[in-house]
């Protein structure tokens, strides 16, 4: 463990910036909205920015990316295919623990299971992750319900905690250690590590007063969601309020469904694109020929929450699918983000 003076924290980022494309928390000037986006100027990074509205998954799994290009000459009967991979080095600086949990879910999903997703692997394998402990929650947070915060436990290269005049710098990997050594950071003392514990505990107590928008007693509901013992009427009630916009899946740090399309450019080259897709859409499960096994909107809502909360999905992620970031609640036009849905289900169970 090391420490670094609060005012010098961005020096860490500047060091990384020498050979990484940097992404960090920034507040957009004209609208005041917090993002986790690429920064050209390290001084734009705002460590005190609130939880970013857009989860950093877009760095590893962009909204739209080209995964392949090919050219087919129908006259010559010749085909050429090239995979398109992003081999650049990227650093995420100042990631919130819930978003790190989201990335770990994506890791286990894209890199574990039967096949490895080569595009995700290329984005991810050279990535440097610096997390920032939340010393206070935001209004929408409920990571304490989903065991994904307020401090990161694993998966980071460096974990920062604001302990007053300093940041505590914990290293979680060899890369992290190397960076700390390269920057000649001072070693942390017992009191620094203790201060972190104090701050994290304080953060948890602050949830009561600050994180008032969302609470989700997930454990009670996971059982029902897994076994499917939830009244149809509840799903219909939820489905009626769904505007089928796809927002919840797009902002979720652990949602990874995608669509693949081939588009033809005017110069004869075709690109294969991968774009975010959403199980909220009717066309998501529709087969060519017309059969659609998940046509009613309430079935799609059911499926989404099964994906987030059931035991079988959790096995894939090695944790519940929900990371308690609260984004699905503020993007939903119908007001049926995960916390509300959990509440509706709980209400039905207790009746």
């Amino acid at each position, binding site marked *: 463990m090391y420490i670094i003076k609060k005012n010098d924290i961005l020096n860490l980022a500047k060091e990384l910036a020498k050979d990484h494309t940097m992404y960090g928390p920034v507040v957009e000037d004209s609208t005041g909205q917090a993002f986790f986006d690429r920064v050209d100027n390290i001084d734009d990074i705002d460590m005190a920015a609130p939880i970013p509205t857009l989860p950093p998954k877009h760095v590893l799994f962009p909204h739209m990316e080209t995964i392949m290009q090919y050219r087919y000459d129908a006259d010559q009967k010749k085909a050429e295919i090239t995979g398109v991979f992003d081999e650049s080095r990227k650093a995420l600086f100042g990631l919130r623990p819930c978003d790190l949990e989201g990335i770990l879910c994506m890791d286990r999903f894209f890199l574990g299971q039967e*096949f490895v997703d080569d595009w995700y692997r290329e984005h991810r394998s050279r990535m440097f992750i610096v997390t920032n402990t939340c010393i206070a929650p935001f209004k929408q947070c409920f990571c304490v319900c989903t065991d994904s915060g307020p401090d990161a436990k694993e998966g980071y290269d460096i974990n920062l905690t604001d302990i007053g005049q300093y940041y505590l710098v914990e290293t979680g990997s060899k890369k992290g250690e190397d960076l700390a050594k390269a920057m000649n950071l001072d070693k942390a003392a017992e009191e620094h590590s203790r201060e972190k514990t104090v701050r994290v505990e304080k953060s948890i107590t602050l949830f009561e007063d600050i994180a008032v928008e969302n609470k989700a007693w997930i454990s009670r509901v996971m059982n029902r969601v897994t076994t499917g013992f939830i009244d149809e009427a509840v799903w219909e009630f939820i489905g009626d309020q769904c505007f089928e916009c796809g927002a919840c899946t797009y902002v979720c740090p652990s949602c990874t469904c995608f*669509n693949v399309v081939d588009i033809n450019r005017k110069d004869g080259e075709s690109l294969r694109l991968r774009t975010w897709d959403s199980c909220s859409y009717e066309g998501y*499960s529709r087969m*060519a020929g017309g059969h659609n096994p998940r046509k009613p909107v309430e079935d799609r809502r059911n499926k989404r929450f099964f994906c987030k909360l059931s035991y079988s999905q959790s096995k894939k992620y090695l944790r519940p699918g929900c990371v308690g970031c609260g984004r699905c609640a503020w993007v939903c036009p119908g007001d049926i983000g995960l916390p509300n849905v959990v509440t509706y289900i709980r209400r039905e169970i207790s009746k």
Partner: protein
Amino acid sequence: MNIQKIVTIPEIATIDEIKEEIQDVKTFYLSFDNKEVDKTFKFKSGQFIMCTVFGSGEFAVSLPPSPEDDRFHITVKTVGKVTGALHSLQAGDKLGVRGPFGNGFPFEDIKGKNVVYVAGGIGLIPLRSSIVNVLQHREDFGRIILMYGSRSPDDLMYSYNLEEWQNIDGFETFITVDNPTPDWKGHTGIITTLFDKMELPVDDTVAFVCGPPIMFNAVIKEMMDRGISDEHIISTLERHMKCGVGKCQHCGIGRTLVCTDGPVYTYRQIKTLGEQI
């Protein structure tokens, strides 16, 4: 070099020959351009590939050839944009192939048993792979039975195979059509009527069923009423697929992903997937 699976970037294959089957259905005989791949590409019956039609897109298609000694081909009905584009291609055109994916039909595990195939319409296509493979090892299996029904004689798939199968000793074939033409000499009636025309083996028997949902449910009922248990009824499920490797999640049904856990499931598994098929 042993090529296991082509996962990410498709391998280029040539359409060697195209055969018109029934209305809107064609068979495309393929071979890989890369001779190494062509020699070592191995698959199990019941598996599928992701086929790229250049300029149009990619779609999932089951592999009807037997894994042994059978000309590599795919049989495709035109149902949408990509399959439509496929049908406009000619011999000599190229396709992209990724695969083989999926769990495949049981083969070793069912040796010694009676094997019953029940197919409806184009449902015969994915089953063909297992039928041919099992027939290639006739002596390792008990009774082998095919029950096949279509709307009309013009909708019977693989008519050339059916002809040769009807003449194989030890392969009991029962074929029916819903709507006969004047020159149809075979059985008439929906496929469930065939059950009364034969002695269905029940013990040590495994049944493969593939066809449209209504037919599927009716056939399963007939079999279970006669005593075949739900874990000995096997089917292959279809779903909208984009990646074929368990990532895009379009093919999910409840707890399972059809492209990696399936597409072959027992009826017992289908009942407990967690969602309607």
